[in-house]
């Protein structure tokens, strides 16, 4: 199937183009792209330690990527993963700070709290959409900032670590810290939980009744309602699960990396999740390698900065370019795919499909 290759090929092209533009920026800065990228690659994958750091950076990204993917599949343009991450992370922090229990209970409990609170926070725009038909794009976006302000308030006032100059909580209980998988790094079992979550999402969408109904109503609400699917319920559930997964992203930051909730804990993981989900075409399993790639850009960026004069932010610049190309990918590959359809499909209804290549010109006549 030629058409199946469109998504991977265009994703790869977008990535290459982004690195190309990154190389130009490096050159403009008077540095060598080969050296810089070499350092980035070495830093990200060149040593066990580097790999561990890449995977630990990737862990929250897998969660936010999954969260966005699940919500989009359920038909909700969820731009609120960032806020859901903050709320989930805060919930995990509260449990991990105050519930004296052994790890075997405390860790699952903290994660559960993150999932539920992140999920409930994600369900708000879904309920608004279902009950009042409010566009989720603006509401999810606005809720990000409400979550940021709210958690900032908590870490600066009621939960503030005494004597700390920064807005942050005390360290969480040791029992709540996620066990480390590679000594000398913060690579922890959160990664395994993330991979399991991806598998669970994949199974849910491919095998379960709930996943089936969520998917179908996300694709065609009218059809779904005619075959007896409770569209509103499934949509809300999709946003709840999506929000919950993003919330887990916050939990692994708190319990696996920071060991406390710090004001502004996420440098935009929620928005990265959007890019990752898009690149993965909302496929849960594909989220994993793409999140790892993004993790590599973050962790390798630091090595690059230490060994060359190129600031680590270049990684983020490259990401931005990737996002931009991703935005172009869908319409461009749709044109390619339409064209393949147009050539190969015989329409039996006699309905004449408009020439897909011409259609693109519409609206711009003269």
């Amino acid at each position, binding site marked *: 199937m030629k058409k199946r290759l469109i998504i991977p090929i265009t994703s790869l092209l977008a990535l290459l183009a982004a690195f190309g533009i990154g190389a130009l920026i490096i050159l403009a800065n008077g540095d060598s792209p080969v050296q810089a990228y070499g350092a980035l690659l070495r830093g990200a994958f060149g040593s066990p330690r580097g790999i561990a750091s890449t995977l630990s950076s990737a862990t929250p990204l897998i969660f936010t990527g999954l969260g966005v993917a699940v919500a989009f599949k359920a038909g909700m*343009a969820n731009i609120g993963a960032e806020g859901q991450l903050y709320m989930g992370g805060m919930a995990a922090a509260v449990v991990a700070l105050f519930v004296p229990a052994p790890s075997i209970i405390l860790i699952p409990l903290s994660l559960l709290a993150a999932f539920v609170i992140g999920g409930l926070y994600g369900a708000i725009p879904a309920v608004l959409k279902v009950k009042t*038909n409010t566009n989720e*794009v603006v509401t999810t976006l606005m809720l990000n900032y409400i979550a940021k302000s709210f958690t900032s308030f908590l870490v600066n006032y009621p939960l503030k670590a005494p004597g700390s100059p920064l807005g942050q909580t005390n360290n969480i209980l040791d029992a709540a810290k996620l066990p480390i998988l590679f000594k000398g790094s913060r690579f922890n079992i959160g990664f395994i939980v993330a991979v399991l979550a991806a598998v669970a999402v994949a199974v849910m969408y491919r095998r379960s009744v709930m996943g089936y109904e969520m998917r179908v109503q996300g694709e065609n609400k009218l059809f779904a309602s005619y075959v007896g699917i409770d569209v509103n319920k499934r949509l809300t559930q999709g946003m709840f699960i999506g929000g919950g997964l993003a919330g887990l992203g916050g939990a692994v930051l708190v319990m696996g990396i920071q060991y406390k909730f710090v004001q502004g804990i996420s440098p935009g993981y929620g928005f990265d999740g959007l890019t990752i989900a898009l690149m993965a075409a909302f496929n849960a399993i594909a989220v994993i390698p793409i999140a790892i790639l993004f993790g590599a850009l973050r962790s390798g960026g630091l090595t690059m900065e230490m060994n060359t004069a190129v600031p680590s*932010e270049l990684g983020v610049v490259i*990401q931005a370019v990737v996002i931009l190309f*991703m935005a172009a990918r869908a319409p461009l590959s749709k044109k390619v795919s339409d064209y393949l359809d147009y050539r190969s499909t015989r329409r039996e209804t006699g309905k004449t499909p408009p020439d897909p290549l011409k259609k693109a010109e519409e609206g711009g006549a003269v």
Partner: protein
Amino acid sequence: MNVLTVLFSAATFAATLRMAVPLLFVALGGVLTKRAGIENIGLEGLMLIGCFSGFAANYFTSNWIVGILAAMAVTVLFALLFGLFVVQIRSHEIVAGTAMNVMGSALTTYLLRSMFGVKGSFTDERVRTIPNISLPVIKDIPVLGTVLSGQSILFWVSLAATAIIIFMLYRTKLGFYIRAAGENEKALASAGVNVKKVRYIALIMHGMLIGLGGIYLSTGYLTQYVEDMTAGRGFIAMAAYAFGMARPGRTFFAVLLFAFVQALSSRLQIFGVPSYFADMIPYAITILVLAVTSYREMKRERV
């Protein structure tokens, strides 16, 4: 008693206007694209780009006018880049907008470090502040003088911009085309008007306005560039025009309201009241207003 007099003092109103200026520019920019049928969630990123590029140009030339022009020009370039993807290629506007946000933050931080070798914040004597205007007679009137006199030139520019945009949108051909492009682009295309061109013109004005909003932060309000110094103002501006239903007049009042809340909250901090709740207010009431209006529209459509 004491609290109230501090809160509702002339200084608070003056601060309100100062805080309103960048929001107003950016929100008006959002109004234009929204009316032309483009939702740009990348206001924050574009604003940051304007903020940085104008500051840098000002630094190299020691001329605040060059700074303003550079901020506008560079922001227009990025707005057109956004337009290239959204108007030309018809990319998902949410994704392209997100790219603008990420790009704005990353690029400015990257350039701050590679150009000036600085992390965090940067200030230099070479950078000229955009002058304030002292009003001859009014400045001696007790309250009015404190509020209106001594505001930046850009404050007056923002008021003029509001008036111009209202006139442009509702009275001129271009305004008709912009509104038609947003409401029913087919109607416009079938009238023989090039929809893409109209949208690009809207995006150019969008970029100019956002550039003005950005430059006000780094060389108007303060004379200092701080990493990510827009601090969510792009999103508050978005909330303001969403609240204002993309009507310039209503958006103007939404901006004043939000700015007043901000000014009030920074005053309240004097009394130890945390500002975080005030920070949430613009977003929360926007969600509320959107929900109520969407609900009404839904009801109306059903009938």
